[in-house]
C-alpha cells in the first residue's frame, strides 16, 4: 500500500519539490552575483537556464502518476461549480434524470426479485416442477397447470425413478380450526412424503413429517407456518407436541416452517401429511402438484425420459376399477415437460415484466435525449470558454473529459435522487401490481438494484455528455473564437445534433404511446365482454365448508346450506342469496369430466372432451345475474327428490345440438354406469378463467345428486345480492345469520365479486397503468424536447427573421416557416416511430385482447396526436418569431 501512503503524503512531496526549485534558483543567482552580475540579471539568467519551472513541476508530479486523478478532481470541482452556477438547468436536468432512473430502478427491483433472484430454497437450481401435458385430455389439462399428478403417479415416480434425489406432491386447500378462538378457516397445504425433503428448507422449530406421519390412520400430525405460529401461539417454541383441532380432528404439532417459506408461491397456515391409502388408489385423481430435486449432474431431458419410461409402469401397476384397461390413458398422450421450479413459480408474468422494463427503458432514453439537448444548448453558450481553453493549450481530450465528468456528475446525483424515488416507486408498484404477482414479498431494493442504478446513472451521464462533447470539443473549436459573440444565422450543420435528438424522441414517444394505446383498446375490449354475471359490486361472496366430521349425512348438509340461504335472504336489503361450488374467476380448483349425450353415437376408441362441472343451488342464476337462455332453472323440490336434471352452458348446447332450445329435454350422463340426466335449462356462457380466456363448456348440477363419491357439495361459495355488500354492518349480520344455523362454521374468502373480477383483470390493468405512465412521461418529455429546440432555434434566428421581415415577409410567412420546421421534425420522427412500433408491438401480442398488434386505428390516432401536439409546442415560439421587431432584431448584438 506504498502508493496509497504516497498519495496521502503527496502534498508534502510537492512542497519539498517547490522549495527545492526555489533554493536551486537562489543558489544559482547567488553564484552569478558572486561572479559579478547584478541581482536582477542573475535572477533572469538563473530562470532561463532552469527552463519552465511550472512545466518541470508538472512533469515531476507526473512521475508519481497522479496527474489523471488530480485532473479528475479539478474537473469534478469545476463541474460541480458549473452545476451550482446554473440552478435552473441543473434542476431540470436532475429532475429528468432522477425520475427516469427512479422509474427504472423501481421496475428493475421487481424484475430482479421476481425473475432473476433464485428461489428461496437451498440449492434451488436443482428443483424442478413435474409438469406434464396431455393433449388428449382437453379441459382437464389446461395450458397453465398442464396435467397434474395423481397419487398413484406419485408412488410410481417416487419408487421407480432413477433421476431424482427426492420427489413429492402437494395440494392447496382449506380447513376449519376450532377450539383456539372463533372458528377459523385456514389455508392448508397437504404434502406427501418426500416433498419437504425435496424442497430442503429446514424447519424453524421441531421436525419435518417423517414416513411414519404418512401412514393412514396413524398418529395425526400437523406443521405450522411461521405467520400462523406467531399469530396464534405468539411464537412460543414450546408449541411442539400441542394438539389442535383441524376439521374436528385432533392433530399434534410436530414443527414450524421458517419465515418466508412458501410452497411455490402459495401462502399457507397449516401443513398436513397427505397419508395416501396406497391400497385404495386408482390411476385417476390428477390434482396434485409435483416437485422434485434432481440428482446432481442430471439434466431435465434425462428426467423427462425417465418419466416417459415410468408412464407404462404406472398404467400397468394401477387400475381405475375391475375390467378397465389402464392403457386407456395412452389416448391422453401424457408427455412429461419438466421445467425448473422457478419457471413454474414465475409463470407468465415474466413476459409482462420485460415489456414494462422495456418501455421504462425507452422513457429513460427519451429523458437522456432531453438532457443531451439541454447540454447542447449550454455547451454552445460556453463555446467561447472552450475555445479559449483550447487556444491556451488544453488538449481536446481534456476538454471532452471535462464535459463528460460534468454530465456524469449530473447523472450520478440524479441517480442518488433516483434511488430515493425508486424506493417510493417500488411501494407504488406493489400497491398497483397484480395481487397474484409471484414472489411479491421478496421484492426489495438490494445490492443488485443499487448496482443497476449506478450503472444506469453512469451510462446515461456518458450518453448525454458524449453528444455535446464530441460535437463541440472537436479540433474545430478554434473557429468559434472568430465568430464569438456574433449572433450569426444558425447554420444547418449546427442544429443537426439537436434535430436528430428530437426526431429520436418523437419516434420513441410514438412507440410508447402506441403500446399504451393498444393496452387501452385491450382494456376496452375486455370490458365489452359480458362476464356471465352482473353488477359484481353488489354481490357479496364468502366460502363455507361443511366437513363430514361435522355433518355426515349428505342431505343434512344441503338442508343446512338451504337454511343459511333462507336466513341470509331475510337480512334487510338482501334481494336474494344462493351458492355455487365456486364462482367464476375465484381461482379454486374445479371438477371436470366427460359427458355423453343420449342421442349421439360415440365410437369405441374416441374420447369425449372434458366439461367443467358446477354444483349450484336454486336461485343461483337470479342472484349472480347469469342469463337463462332457454328452459328453466331447477328448484328445491327437485334437489331433495334427487331428480336427475342438469343445466348446460350455451356453448355446450350449441356444440351438441346446434341451438340452445334444441338442448331442452335431451339427456346426458358421465359414463355408462351413471344415470341419464335431463337438460332442463341453457345458461349464457360464463368466463370461468377471466374474460380473456375462452368460456369453458359447462354443466350445472343440483347441489345434491345420486352419486356414491360426492353426493352433496360441501365446500361452496355463497353469494348474496345486496346494495349493502361489502359494508361492515352487513357482514356482521351475515355472520350472525350463518352462525344462527350452525355456530361451528367459519366464513372464508369474504369479498365482493368486484374484487374477484378486478383481481382477474389485474394483469391487464397493471400493464395498462404502467404503459400509460410511460406513455405520458414520453409524451411530456417529447413535447418539452420539441418546444425547446424550436424555441431555441427561433431565438438564434432572430436576426435572420428580422431581415426577412424588413425585406417584406409577412408575419404569416414567418409563422409558417417555423411551424414547417417543427412539423418536419415531428413527421420524420413519427415515420421512424411507426416503423419501430410495427416491429416492437409484436412482442406484446400475448398481452393484447381483441386488438391486433398492428391496429391501424391506434397507430393513426397516436401519430395524429403526436403531430398535433408537436405543432402546438412549436406554435408558441413561432408566434414569438412572428412578433419580432425588425429594428430590434437587427440591432440585437
Amino acid at each position, binding site marked *: 500500500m506504498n502508493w496509497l501512503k*504516497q498519495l496521502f503524503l503527496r502534498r508534502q512531496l510537492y512542497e*519539498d*519539490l517547490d*522549495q*527545492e*526549485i526555489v*533554493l*536551486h534558483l537562489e*543558489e*544559482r543567482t547567488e553564484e552569478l552575483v558572486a561572479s559579478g552580475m547584478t541581482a536582477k540579471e542573475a535572477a533572469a539568467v538563473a530562470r532561463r*537556464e*532552469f*527552463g*519552465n*519551472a511550472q*512545466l*518541470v*513541476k508538472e*512533469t*515531476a*508530479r*507526473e*512521475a*508519481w*502518476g497522479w496527474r489523471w486523478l488530480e485532473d479528475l478532481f479539478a474537473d469534478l470541482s469545476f463541474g460541480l461549480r458549473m452545476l451550482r452556477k446554473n440552478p435552473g438547468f441543473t434542476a431540470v436536468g436532475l429532475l429528468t434524470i432522477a425520475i427516469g432512473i427512479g422509474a427504472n430502478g423501481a421496475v428493475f427491483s421487481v424484475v430482479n426479485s421476481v425473475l432473476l433472484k433464485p428461489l428461496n430454497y437451498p440449492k434451488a437450481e436443482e428443483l424442478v416442477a413435474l409438469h406434464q401435458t396431455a393433449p388428449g385430455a382437453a379441459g382437464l389439462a389446461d395450458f397453465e397447470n398442464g396435467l397434474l399428478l395423481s397419487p398413484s403417479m406419485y408412488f410410481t415416480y417416487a419408487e421407480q425413478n432413477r433421476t431424482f434425489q427426492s420427489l413429492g406432491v402437494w395440494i392447496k386447500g382449506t380447513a376449519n380450526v376450532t377450539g383456539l378462538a372463533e372458528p377459523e378457516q385456514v389455508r392448508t397445504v397437504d404434502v406427501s412424503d418426500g416433498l419437504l425433503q425435496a424442497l430442503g428448507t429446514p424447519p424453524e422449530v421441531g421436525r419435518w413429517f417423517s414416513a411414519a406421519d404418512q401412514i393412514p390412520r396413524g398418529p395425526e400430525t400437523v406443521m405450522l407456518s411461521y405467520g400462523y405460529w406467531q399469530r396464534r401461539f405468539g411464537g412460543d417454541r414450546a408449541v411442539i407436541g400441542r394438539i389442535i383441532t383441524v376439521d374436528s380432528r385432533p392433530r399434534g404439532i410436530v414443527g414450524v416452517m421458517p419465515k418466508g417459506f412458501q410452497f411455490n408461491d402459495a401462502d399457507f397456515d397449516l401443513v398436513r401429511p397427505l397419508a395416501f391409502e396406497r391400497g385404495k388408489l386408482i390411476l385417476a385423481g390428477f390434482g396434485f402438484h409435483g416437485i422434485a430435486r434432481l440428482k446432481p449432474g442430471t439434466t431435465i431431458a434425462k428426467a423427462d425420459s425417465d418419466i416417459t419410461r415410468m408412464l407404462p409402469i404406472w398404467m400397468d401397476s394401477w387400475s381405475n376399477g375391475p375390467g378397465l384397461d389402464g392403457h386407456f390413458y395412452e389416448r391422453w398422450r401424457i408427455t412429461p415437460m419438466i421445467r425448473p421450479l422457478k419457471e413454474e413459480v414465475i409463470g407468465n408474468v415474466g413476459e409482462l415484466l420485460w415489456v414494462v422494463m422495456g418501455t421504462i427503458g425507452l422513457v429513460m432514453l427519451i429523458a437522456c435525449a432531453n438532457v443531451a439537448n439541454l447540454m447542447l444548448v449550454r455547451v454552445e453558450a460556453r463555446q467561447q470558454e472552450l475555445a479559449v481553453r483550447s487556444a491556451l*493549450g488544453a*488538449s481536446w481530450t481534456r476538454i471532452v473529459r471535462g464535459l463528460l465528468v460534468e454530465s456524469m456528475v449530473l447523472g450520478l446525483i440524479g441517480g442518488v435522487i433516483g434511488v430515493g424515488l425508486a424506493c417510493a416507486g417500488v411501494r407504488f408498484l406493489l400497491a398497483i401490481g397484480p395481487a397474484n404477482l409471484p414472489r411479491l414479498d421478496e421484492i426489495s431494493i438490494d445490492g443488485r438494484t443499487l448496482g443497476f442504478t449506478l450503472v444506469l446513472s453512469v451510462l446515461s451521464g456518458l450518453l448525454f455528455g458524449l453528444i455535446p462533447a464530441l460535437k463541440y470539443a472537436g479540433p474545430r473549436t478554434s473557429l468559434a473564437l472568430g465568430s464569438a459573440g456574433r449572433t450569426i444565422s444558425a447554420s444547418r450543420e449546427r442544429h443537426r445534433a439537436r434535430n436528430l435528438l428530437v426526431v429520436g424522441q418523437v419516434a420513441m414517444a410514438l412507440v410508447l404511446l402506441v403500446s399504451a394505446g393498444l393496452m387501452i383498446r385491450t382494456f376496452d375490449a375486455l370490458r365489452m365482454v359480458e362476464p356471465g354475471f352482473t353488477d359484481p359490486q353488489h354481490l357479496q361472496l364468502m366460502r363455507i365448508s361443511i366437513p363430514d366430521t361435522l355433518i355426515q349425512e349428505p342431505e343434512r348438509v344441503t338442508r343446512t346450506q338451504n337454511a343459511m340461504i333462507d336466513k341470509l335472504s331475510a337480512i334487510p336489503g338482501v334481494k336474494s342469496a344462493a351458492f355455487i361450488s365456486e364462482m367464476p374467476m375465484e381461482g379454486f380448483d374445479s371438477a371436470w369430466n366427460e359427458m355423453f349425450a343420449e342421442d349421439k353415437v360415440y365410437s369405441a376408441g374416441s374420447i369425449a372432451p372434458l366439461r367443467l362441472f358446477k354444483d349450484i343451488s336454486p336461485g343461483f342464476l337470479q342472484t349472480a345475474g347469469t342469463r337463462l337462455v332457454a328452459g328453466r332453472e331447477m328448484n328445491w323440490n327437485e334437489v331433495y327428490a334427487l331428480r336427475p336434471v342438469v343445466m348446460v352452458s350455451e356453448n355446450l348446447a350449441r356444440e351438441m345440438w346446434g341451438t340452445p332450445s334444441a338442448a331442452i329435454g335431451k339427456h346426458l350422463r358421465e359414463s355408462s354406469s351413471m344415470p341419464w340426466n335431463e337438460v332442463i335449462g341453457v345458461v349464457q356462457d360464463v368466463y370461468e378463467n377471466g374474460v380473456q380466456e375462452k368460456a369453458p363448456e359447462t354443466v350445472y348440477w343440483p347441489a345434491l345428486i345420486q352419486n356414491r363419491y360426492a353426493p352433496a357439495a360441501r365446500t361452496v361459495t355463497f353469494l348474496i345480492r345486496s346494495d349493502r355488500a361489502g359494508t361492515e354492518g352487513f357482514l356482521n349480520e351475515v355472520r350472525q345469520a350463518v352462525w344462527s344455523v350452525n355456530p361451528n362454521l367459519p366464513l372464508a374468502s369474504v369479498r365482493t365479486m368486484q374484487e374477484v373480477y378486478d383481481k382477474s383483470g389485474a394483469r391487464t390493468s397493471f400493464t395498462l397503468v404502467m404503459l400509460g405512465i410511460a406513455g405520458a412521461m414520453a409524451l411530456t418529455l417529447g413535447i418539452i424536447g420539441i418546444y425547446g429546440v424550436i424555441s431555441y432555434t427561433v431565438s438564434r434566428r432572430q436576426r435572420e427573421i428580422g431581415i426577412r421581415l424588413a425585406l417584406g415577409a409577412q408575419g404569416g410567412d414567418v409563422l409558417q416557416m417555423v411551424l414547417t420546421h417543427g412539423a418536419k421534425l415531428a413527421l420524420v420522427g413519427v415515420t421512424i416511430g411507426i416503423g419501430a412500433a410495427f416491429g416492437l408491438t409484436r412482442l406484446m401480442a400475448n398481452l393484447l385482447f381483441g386488438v391486433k398488434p398492428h391496429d391501424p386505428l391506434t397507430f393513426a390516432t397516436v401519430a395524429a396526436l403526436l403531430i398535433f401536439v408537436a405543432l402546438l409546442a412549436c406554435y408558441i415560439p413561432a408566434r414569438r418569431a412572428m412578433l419580432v421587431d425588425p429594428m430590434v432584431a437587427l440591432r440585437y448584438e
Partner: protein
Amino acid sequence: MKKTAQRDLFPGALEMMILRMLKRQPLHGYALVQQIKRTSQDLLQIEEGSLYPALQRLLKAELVKAEWAVSSTNRRVRIYKLTAAGAKHLEREVSSFERMLEGITRVLAQGES
C-alpha cells in the same frame, strides 16, 4: 501536449548519470547539475530543470532517497542518496548501455571501413 522536457540523448540517460554521480557521494539538486555539467565538460546540453522530474522518478522507484540537511555552505539543501536498489540498477543500466554503445560503435566502424 508537449511531452516531458527534453531528456537529452535518450530516455534513461539522465537517470543513469544521476545515479552514477550519487554513487560517488550524496548530493543536492543544484550540486548534481553542476557536477554533471562540469564532468561532461558542457558537452551535454542539459536544461537544469529537467533534473527534477528525473529525480522524482528515481524517488518513486526508490532508487534514491532524499532528506533535508544543511550544507557546508550553510544553506538548506535536499540531499539525495543512492539506495542499495539504486546501486544495483545503476550496474545493470551501465552494463546494458555499454553493450549498446559497443554495438553501435562496431556498426559505425564497419560503415567506415
